[in-house]
C-alpha cells in the first residue's frame, strides 16, 4: 500500500476496504487451520500431503492479506492473526463448522473455493493496486484448489452410496452458511471507489452460474431456481450475523488451539 493509493480513497471507502481485507484474511486463515487438522489422518498419504499443502496455501494468503490491512491502517499482522478475542474475527460462518468427515471438508472447501474465486475475479482489476497484485497471485494457487476440490466432488458423488450420502448431507447442512462468504460486507463504497468491480450480489450470481454447471449434472443439492436471468434461493437466506460477532463453540475451540502459543507470551519475538 502506498500513501498515494490510500489517499485516493475517502474515509468511507477506506473503512469498507479494511472490512473487506479483514474478512478475506480471516476466511483464509480459519479455513487453513481447519484443513490443517487432516495432517496425519487424511484418507490416504497422498491426500494428506495435498490437503496440508492447500491449508498452507490459505495461511500464506491470509498472511499477505493481513499485511495489506496493516499497511492500510497500521498494526502488526501477527497480532491481527493471533492477538484478537474470538468475537473480533470476521470470517464467514461457513468457516465456523469443524472439519467433521472427509466429505464435509470437501463440500465446505468446494463451496468456499468457488465463492472465493468469484470474489477474486471481482478484485483482480481493483483500483487498490496492492490488493490487485495479491489477488493475481492468489488466483494462480486457487485455480489448483478448484481443480482438486472439483475432482473430489465428482468422485464422492459417483463413488457409491455412502460417499454420496455424506456429500449430500454436508452440502445440505452448509448451503445457508456458504452464502455468507459473499455477504456481511459494506460493498457499495467499494464498488463506487473501483476497489470491487461489481456488487457482491452480482458476484454471488456469477458464483451460482458456475456451481450450477457442476452440481446440477451430478444432481447434488443446489437450492436455487432460475428466474429470468437470476438465481433465486429456494430456501431461507442465512441467519443474520454472517461474519460474527457471535461464534459457534467449534470456532471457539479452534481459536483456543491456534492462539494458544501466541497467548502464552504475546510479547515474544519469533
Amino acid at each position, binding site marked *: 500500500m502506498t500513501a498515494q493509493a490510500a489517499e485516493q480513497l475517502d474515509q468511507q471507502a477506506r473503512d469498507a476496504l479494511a472490512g473487506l481485507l479483514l474478512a478475506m484474511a480471516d476466511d483464509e486463515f480459519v479455513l487453513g487451520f481447519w484443513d490443517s487438522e487432516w495432517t496425519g489422518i487424511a*484418507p*490416504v*498419504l*497422498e*491426500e494428506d500431503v495435498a490437503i496440508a*499443502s492447500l491449508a498452507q496455501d490459505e495461511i500464506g494468503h491470509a498472511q499477505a492479506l493481513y499485511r495489506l490491512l496493516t499497511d492500510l491502517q497500521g498494526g502488526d499482522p501477527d497480532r491481527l492473526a493471533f492477538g484478537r478475542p474470538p468475537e473480533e474475527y470476521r470470517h464467514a460462518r461457513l468457516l465456523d463448522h469443524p472439519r467433521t468427515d472427509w466429505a464435509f471438508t470437501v463440500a465446505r472447501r468446494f463451496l468456499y473455493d468457488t465463492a472465493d474465486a468469484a470474489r477474486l475475479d471481482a478484485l483482480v482489476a481493483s483500483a487498490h493496486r496492492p490488493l490487485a497484485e495479491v489477488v493475481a497471485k492468489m488466483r494462480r494457487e486457487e485455480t489448483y484448489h478448484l481443480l482438486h476440490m472439483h475432482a473430489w466432488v465428482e*468422485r464422492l458423488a*459417483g*463413488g457409491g452410496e455412502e*460417499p454420496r450420502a455424506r456429500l449430500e448431507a454436508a452440502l445440505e447442512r452448509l448451503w445457508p452458511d456458504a452464502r455468507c462468504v459473499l455477504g456481511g460486507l459494506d460493498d457499495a463504497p467499494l464498488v463506487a471507489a473501483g476497489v470491487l468491480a461489481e456488487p457482491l450480489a452480482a458476484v454471488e450470481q456469477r458464483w451460482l452460474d458456475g456451481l450450477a454447471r457442476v452440481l446440477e449434472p451430478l444432481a447434488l443439492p443446489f437450492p436455487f431456481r432460475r428466474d429470468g436471468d437470476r438465481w433465486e434461493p429456494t430456501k431461507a437466506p442465512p441467519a443474520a450475523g454472517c461474519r460474527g460477532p457471535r461464534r459457534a463453540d467449534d470456532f471457539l475451540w479452534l481459536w483456543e488451539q491456534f492462539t494458544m502459543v501466541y497467548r502464552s507470551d504475546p510479547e515474544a519475538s519469533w
Partner: protein
Amino acid sequence: MTGQPMQVFEVFRREREGGPMQHAGNLLAPDPELAAHYAREFYGRRQESVRLWIVPRAAIRDLADPDLLQPPFDRDPDLLQPPFDRSFKKPAGYSAEIKRKLAEARARAGGEGAEDDDPVAASGREGVEQA
C-alpha cells in the same frame, strides 16, 4: 475410498529446461487425474520441476516379464548378463587397459619414475622439493 482400486503411478521429472526426464518416485492414486494432482504436490510445488510425466506402473514393461519375450526352445536369453568379458566395449575398460600397459612398459624400461603411473603428478612433486 472412491470405489476405484488404488494404483501405483511412477513419476518422472525434468529439473530444468534441456535436462533429462529422471525418475522422481512413485505414488498411489485411484486414477490418472488425482495421480497428476499428487505428482504436482510431491514433485512440483516447490518449483523443483519444469515438467512431470505420470505413468501407471502397469504400463511399464520389465525386460524380465515372462510374457514379453519368447526365446526359442525355452532357453534363458540372458540379456542383461552376457557370459563373456565385454569390457573392451566400454571407454573405462579401454583406459584401464592402457594404464596397465603403460605401467608394464615403464617397468620394462626400468629407471626412475617406474613406480609412478602418473608423470604429471610426479613432476609436480619434484617441483615442490626444489622450491
